[in-house]
């Protein structure tokens, strides 16, 4: 009986929380189906009188979204993959290797997180232009190939994998490299999936940077397309929200698809002692 009450309580809390969490999303979808006057109606309306599906068509036509989509997919994929690669290697070094200056290097890397991104835009732009990378895909990708947050997260996870497995792998003839890719990475699958999701979303939603380092339309990414609805005269919320909806939809789908990996994890037991 007690168990049941606890369960019901859990669901009550979760449902309440879910409503709050869901609100912006519902608002977004609902607004995307409104007429312009309805978007600013006071008090706000949740269900438009007539669903304006045409908003989606119109929004899609407002900018070269197909092209943007391809760019977004490309940039996000390469960035995330590259970032995972560099981060996994670095996290491995921090969690399993002994080397001089480990703590110092760690703190320095950590220090890179402490500087606001706003300060880095211009120097990095200058650097990229020295490399002649401005207005290329490289500019969208290269600076983001390292993320200390990912390193940090993975390091925390790698560290909690028992040493025994490291020893066993060495005995089995696995070099550090093999151990990393054949043991550590598969075991940390859930953490890696999680940081992947977080990074993909971060990269997908990046707005300022793609705008600043590209000069041509055909290099730009989806969030840039959202600019099309904000003008001097104001913002066309209905179209903006319609566009936003189809910009985030791939992320939602991706998350739903990957979340079972985030949670599935590995077999619960398996290592004794």
């Amino acid at each position, binding site marked *: 009986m007690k168990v049941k009450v606890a369960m019901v309580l859990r669901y009550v809390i979760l449902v309440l929380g879910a409503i*709050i969490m869901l609100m912006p999303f519902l*608002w977004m979808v609902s607004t995307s189906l409104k007429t312009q006057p309805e978007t600013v109606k006071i*008090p706000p309306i949740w269900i438009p009188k007539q669903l304006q599906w045409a908003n989606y068509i119109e929004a899609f036509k407002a900018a070269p979204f197909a092209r943007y989509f391809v760019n977004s997919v490309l940039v996000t994929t390469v960035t995330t993959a590259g970032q995972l690669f560099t981060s996994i290697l670095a996290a491995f*070094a921090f969690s399993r290797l002994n080397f001089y200056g480990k703590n110092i290097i760690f703190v320095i890397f950590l220090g890179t997180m402490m500087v606001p991104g706003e300060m880095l835009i211009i120097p990095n732009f200058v650097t990229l232009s020295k490399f002649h990378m401005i207005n290329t895909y490289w500019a969208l990708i290269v*600076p983001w190939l390292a993320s200390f947050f990912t390193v940090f997260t993975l390091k925390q996870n790698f560290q909690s994998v028992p040493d025994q497995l490291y020893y066993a792998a060495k005995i089995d003839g696995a070099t550090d490299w093999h151990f990393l890719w054949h043991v550590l990475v598969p075991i940390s699958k859930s953490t890696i999936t999680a940081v992947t999701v977080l990074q993909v979303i971060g990269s997908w939603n990046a707005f300022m940077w793609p705008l600043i380092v590209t000069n041509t339309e055909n290099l730009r990414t989806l969030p840039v397309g959202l600019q099309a609805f904000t003008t001097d005269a104001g913002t066309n919320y209905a179209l903006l929200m319609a566009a936003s909806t189809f910009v985030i939809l791939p992320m*939602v789908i991706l998350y739903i698809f990957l979340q079972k990996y*985030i949670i599935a994890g590995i077999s619960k037991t398996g290592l004794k002692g």
Partner: protein
Amino acid sequence: MLNEKPTLKSTAKALLYLLPMLVITIIFNIYPILKSFIMSFYTKYDFFKDIVQQWGGSNFTFIFRDPDFHLAVKNTLIFVVGVVPLTVIISLVIALLLNKIKWLSGLFRTVYFLPFVTSTVAIAQVWHWIYNSDYGLLNYFLSLFGINPIAWLESPKYAMLALIIMSIWKSLGFNIVLFLVGLNNINERYYQAAEIDGANAWHQFTNVTLPLLSPITFLVSVNGVIGSFKVFDQIFALFNGTPGPSKSALTIVYYLYQKFYTEWKYGIAAASGVVLFFMILLVTLIQMWYSKKHVHY
């Protein structure tokens, strides 16, 4: 080896592993950071042509005297203290709840993650509406308890609170995911042992979950502290490109942004960045020191 001491060889090897990360980080983080550290000592300076006419510490004396900077520091600290502990606690609680349920758990997890995916514009819109003094949802709720409408976004007294609430809400999804992963990595057998040892759900939580989750909690709180010290986007979105009514949400990064991009005072901006950096560093080092004792790997 288990008890191996660092050697030149092991260091060389580690550096190889760090290399890709190191190269990118040095070029795109460390180099610009050093540059801006140096820039903070430029007092007369042609930004575009990189010609320094005069060096000195006057940028620092300027910000240390600038009441706006004092205000920014104060606001930033309030923000950090307001956001981080609550974020950690709330996201942990939700992660625990999500971890405990089976039915519809996938749906709930997705829902809790949505704010993190949803576009910032949409979020700002909704929060404007929630905070609206006349017809906002929040005031509506408060009115049920007989509380008079509050001008959340227009009153210097409440603006920071409004910002804190929105920021907590926004970062929940992210931290919940991290906590879920952490929970998932705790071996079931410790719970079994604890149950046998007579630990009820609460005791299992305090004696097994919390200690074994400590690496993730550490990560979340360090990341939270650093992120909160750097708060900017949310302010820009919530207060429509202003630092809040009567600068009540003027934070260090906002100050920096203003100095840099609208006032073209590069040296001062850099100096405030340096101060921010050392503030974060100090707090982070304290956290790391604390974690040495309390984080179990």
